[in-house]
């Protein structure tokens, strides 16, 4: 094949600028992992109890809900969107689980199915607003967040559902959280808590889906250039809807773990998970300098936030400082993924 007049890729000359460039690239790429490892080492050396494997597993267990919610957020970020309703959907899951088992006296399996169905339904509602009614993603999911939180309260007359409670009609609630259901979070397999196993499994599944299947590839294509995707024959609306439904399902799984952990239908559950989930997904975009939402990044971001909060708690920092620390981590991550990587391309 003959070709003429084409630009050749310039060969990099080793200059001071190039070296500086390379250092900066390394900082962007591995900076966050370096921070994580350094902090881990610091805590491990200064606090012997931090080295305990039980502490580590507790840390993972603690972050598993935010991490799973973060996976859903990652999927919606891949199509160029955002899901602000994940915390509310998880909370809805807690209520639906409690309602199914305590009020309707059903077994755990039914509760699980009901929770996941509720999550998928919430995702469909988001898809309807965003894809069909063309409301901007952030605003639409903010709206559904309030609607879902409100629906949840109506469902339980504003009260938390606890086993043996007196219901509004004067009768005693017939059911309770089943043993099997409680084992979701509290049970262990080979010493690893169920919630950590679910977190691990979902991470692998989500990674394969997003990074290795054609569906995942299409989600990223839509996020990067929706019009080009449409003109490549992709049903853009259907795939965006899929992302929100999957996000709803993942959030409901987070809700299952939360319900299993609390053991009652706490009406306030899930609300605090939203910001952590979004933070985790945003931290994830900066990991490995990819500058785009990715599953390993999100999982690693969750672990990092877990290490920092657990570490600081062991160091004796009061719990109420936690928000400031997490916020600072998020901002640092945003500096990595926006400010530094922008400068790189400029």
């Amino acid at each position: 094949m003959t070709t003429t007049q084409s630009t050749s890729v310039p060969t990099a000359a080793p200059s001071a600028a190039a070296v500086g460039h390379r250092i900066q690239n390394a900082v962007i790429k591995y900076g966050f992992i370096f921070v994580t490892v350094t902090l881990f080492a610091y805590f491990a050396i200064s606090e012997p109890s931090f080295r305990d494997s039980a502490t580590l597993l507790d840390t993972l267990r603690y972050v598993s809900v935010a991490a799973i919610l973060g996976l859903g957020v990652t999927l919606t970020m891949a199509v160029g969107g955002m899901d602000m309703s994940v915390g509310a959907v998880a909370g809805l899951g807690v209520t639906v689980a409690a309602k199914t088992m305590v009020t309707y006296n059903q077994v755990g399996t039914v509760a699980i199915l009901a929770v996941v169905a509720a999550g998928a339904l919430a995702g469909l509602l988001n898809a309807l607003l965003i894809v069909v009614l063309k409301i901007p993603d952030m605003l639409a999911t903010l709206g559904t967040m309030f609607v879902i939180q409100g629906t949840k309260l109506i469902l339980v007359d504003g009260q938390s559902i606890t086993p043996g409670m007196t219901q509004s009609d004067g009768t005693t609630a017939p059911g309770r959280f089943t043993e099997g259901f409680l084992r979701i979070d509290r049970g262990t397999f080979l010493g690893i808590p169920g919630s950590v196993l679910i977190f691990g499994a979902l991470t692998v599944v989500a990674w394969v889906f997003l990074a290795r299947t054609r569906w995942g590839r299409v989600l990223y294509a839509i996020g990067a250039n929706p019009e080009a995707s449409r003109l490549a024959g992709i049903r853009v609306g259907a795939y965006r809807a899929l992302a929100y439904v999957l996000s709803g399902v993942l959030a409901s799984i987070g809700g299952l773990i939360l319900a299993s952990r609390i053991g009652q239908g706490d009406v306030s559950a899930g609300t605090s998970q939203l910001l952590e989930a979004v933070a985790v997904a945003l931290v994830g975009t900066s990991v490995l300098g990819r500058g785009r939402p990715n599953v390993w990044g999100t999982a690693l971001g969750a672990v990092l936030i877990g290490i920092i909060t657990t570490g600081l708690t062991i160091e004796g920092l009061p719990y109420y400082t936690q928000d400031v620390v997490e916020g600072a981590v998020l901002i640092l991550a945003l500096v990595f993924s926006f400010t530094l990587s922008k400068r790189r391309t400029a």
Partner: protein
Amino acid sequence: MSPTDAPVESAAVALRDVSMAFGGKTVLASVSLDIAPGSVVALLGANGAGKSTLIKILSGVHTEHGGQVSVNGVPAALHSPLAARQLGIQTVHQRIGEGIVPGLSVAENLVFEELAQARGNPFRGGRRLLARAREIQSALDLGWSDAVLRRDVTELGISDRQLLILARALATRPRLLVLDEPTSALSAAEAERLFALVERMRSEGIAVLYVSHRLGEIDALADRLVVLRDGRLTEDQVKPFDWDSALRAMLAQAQETTTARPRRTGEQGEVVLSLRGVPLLAGHPPQDLDLRTGEVTGVVGLLGAGKTELARGLFGAEPFTGGAVELDGKPYEPRRPADAIRGGIHLVPEDRHTDALVPGWSVAQNISLPFLRSLSTVGLVSRSKEDALGRATIEQLGVVARDEHSPVEELSGGNQQKVVVGRWLAENPRVLILDEPFRGVDIGARRDIGRRARALAAEGAAVLVLSADVDEVLEIADRVVVLAAGEIRLDAYGEDAERDRVIQTISASV
């Protein structure tokens, strides 16, 4: 056309050897032009000829240019949009929305520049503002009552907004007014109001640079026309205009060395796609067209002739509003691109950046996007199959890239275009539509793409090439269709589609 060396004393604005290059590519080469006060100079040129670069230099957006711009004989430093305005060069851009501030009243928008420069009392009362707006409206005879001036600007129709922006520019009493495609969003009646305003400017001694592709308007309004092609001024006429010569300068290659390919005239392939009574542009008569296997059909026409509408309609990107299309004798009504692709109809869109390429992705990933299904087993994309497809395309079209993993942004424009073309060859198309495939593409890439398109036709596909460049089309097509205002004006093969006849057909429809 020989440029004088010194700027003419009387010129409102004079350009001397103005040049500009982006990343080594010359977009303007030594352009010299004097615009006299009270004259309307029309600037013509195909897409990518350098018109917008020239406008941006005059409006102070592009500052790193070569050569000299003088205003009233004095060298001017157009180092910012504000500086350009202060020197008396006002530009009204194509996109009307850019100049309007929604939420403010018509009056506030009219005096917006004075407001924005924020000299004097920031709490300047509404009464004085209205008085100033009233002054502007009566001076320009806009016919707007106080009620209109008090309205929110978003309540104005598109032509009134256009008028408002013009009025605002004129209120500053500019020396030169640059109008960039001012009528592209207006109806004929609305355009009349604009023309009246342009006439008024002329009589008041304001110089006007009028950029448009609507030849009828230019004929009616302009005193002089210049043509820009590949960054050079190639034609300079005063009224009455010789349209044949102007179009030749604008649309055809400089030299007449285009080697016409042997055209198939005798045997004809089967009809793959047939259009019956399809309206290409709203309000224009419906058209019939057949596309046959084994031939390259070239559609030539100016911007707005309906070429892109034809391409997007056939591909289901913007379905036709009427008529009937048949594919292999069966009804074909693509409602979305996916339907067209299933029928074997592929489109290389006009703008590869906004409509085809996925930024940040590799060459191989950009190629595989439409046909991921055939590279996957149970949904998992086979990297080895994908890479093999990427390498095959690189080989077949002569894409210059380090390898199939190179980010697509690293490629030159021509090679990016090859990637987009290659994407649609991965699965054999029945009909391949190429909309302006050679825009921003170097000669080598153009030759490679053209060769591949001809080979595809020889293998039995129907190829449709749409372009505003007559020679590009003659170089590649067996059959030439001339489109003007949504109507087919010529449909000819081989000898019958010679250059002069094509150009005359286009100019006859001015």
